[in-house]
């Protein structure tokens, strides 16, 4: 089995966002960068599938900045090969998908996170599925693959859907689908010997033009109504008469 797992690089979720000098992009100079939180589930699912059915897991990242440390970490968690497609210029889901499709052959199973926590778009999987000719099962919080078919769950507003299909397929994963593993020292050492390739490529032109980046108006919080149960009646009054929230 050729199993592919796509890893995005995002600013740590504690990052405070500032507007860059151009007025339309975030200034992320001081950000700490991490693997997109949902992609940890994608990696774990890819490795579990390999452990069940055999084959090889390739992790791929598209982006301008050296991501080798994180790719090595993914190798330590059980991936076999890593590829960084090194680009310059702005990336959209269509161009990330196009570059992955051009460099990663014909996978039997592809795993992504449900969305990246920076742009909050959630479209790379759909574009990649289309380009690879694979059916897409998205935002899954449980997934069982057996005898070439799969059964999955997707949490929607007020309910849970059962999603079914067969391999080859592309999956985007939500929390709950598995418990991502940690790598031990032995795995970290072994990962140093696994292949990690870097190729350079040009992304497609962007499809959205950024006009402006704005920060939300700061909330005027900080009004303490009182202490303990004694403050409850005043709170109810404020909610009813002032905030008209009841």
């Amino acid at each position, binding site marked *: 089995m050729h199993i592919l797992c796509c890893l995005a690089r995002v600013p740590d979720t504690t990052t405070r966002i500032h507007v860059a000098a151009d007025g339309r992009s975030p200034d992320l100079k001081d950000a700490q960068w991490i693997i997109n939180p949902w992609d940890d589930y994608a990696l774990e699912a890819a490795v579990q599938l390999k452990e069940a059915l055999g084959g090889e897991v390739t992790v791929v990242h598209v982006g301008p900045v050296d991501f080798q440390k994180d790719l090595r970490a993914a190798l330590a968690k059980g991936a076999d090969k890593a590829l960084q497609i090194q680009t310059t210029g702005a990336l959209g889901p269509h161009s990330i*998908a196009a570059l992955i499709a051009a460099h990663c052959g014909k996978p039997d199973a592809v795993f992504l996170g449900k969305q990246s926590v920076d742009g*909050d778009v959630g479209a790379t999987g759909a574009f990649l599925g289309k380009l690879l000719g694979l059916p897409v099962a998205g935002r899954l919080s449980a997934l069982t693959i057996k005898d070439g078919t799969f059964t999955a769950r997707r949490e929607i507003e007020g309910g849970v859907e059962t999603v079914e299909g067969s391999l080859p397929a592309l999956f985007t994963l939500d929390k709950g689908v598995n418990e991502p593993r940690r790598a031990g020292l032995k795995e970290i050492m072994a990962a140093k010997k696994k292949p990690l390739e870097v190729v350079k490529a040009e992304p497609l032109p962007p499809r959205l033009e950024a006009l402006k980046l*704005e920060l939300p108006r700061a909330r005027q919080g900080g009004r303490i109504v009182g202490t303990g149960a004694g403050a409850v009646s005043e709170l109810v009054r404020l909610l009813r008469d002032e905030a008209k929230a009841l």
Partner: protein
Amino acid sequence: MPKGIIVHLEVRGGVVKRASLEALAEAQRLSASLGGSVTALAVGPDAAAAHAASGSVKLLTCPLEHWSTEAAANALAAALRAEDAAFAFIGATVQGRELAAATAAVLDAPYLADVVALRANGTTLEADRPIFAGKAVLVVRPVALPAVVSLRPGAFASNAPVAGAPGSPLAHTPDATALRVLVTALAAAAAGRKDVSEAEIVVSGGRGLGTPEAFQMVEDLASVLGAAVGASRAVVDLGWRSHAEQVGQTGKVVAPKLYIACGISGAIQHLAGMTTSRTIVAINKDPEAPIFKVADYGIVGDVAEVLPALTAALKAALSGR
């Protein structure tokens, strides 16, 4: 030059989702400046029921035995081409976000995801998109048309559903290969339970509750208010609550009329998911907790003491109406 807007109507249990009604109303508002007409499309097992809310708009239907995102995306793309429309509008529910991305992929078109405001600008649109879970808002414009737009539930006004004429079938036959992944069942959440992303009031609990059993106090308050129950990631990770209830950057982003945070510290990832709520109340025993910086009203105190008192006081206040 493509013109006009196709709006996808999501139908669940014979009822058009509120998010779709909002997308429809917004499309009608914008088409006054953009020109072109608004057409509705309903796909899937419940498609025929969509006319209960399509009003004066032309409705196309594409029935399917089981929902398939791929088949629905193909149908939406076919409708867009047939009408030579410039935009596809989709309510950004979970299903809607899957469909919108798939449709953009089929059309190989620009995709404006989860927008909270739209403005006509000549023949195109400008959109406000929250990024970093709402820590910033990016104003964007597609560089080509057609383009696909998903609209955040609750961010746009909707009209009351008005029944229209029964839909006419879309001239498009779903391809068998588009039926490779199917939704074969839907288990509704327990009766009376609201989803945090759809509720007008959300009462959330955090680690300050102390035990999973103590969440009963949160449930009681929520039931008096007709609210949904939310949770911080800490208690989801502890297994006290399900992930469906998690509010925040890696959970759900909510913007209810009233958000009550109980025993939640207010970590930046949690705040990202709820600071656009209209009114925020925080109950926390630590006066320095960061949640108080965003709360309109705070009570410093122990949840075990404050929550039952608040539930009782609200019960009395609301029954008096």
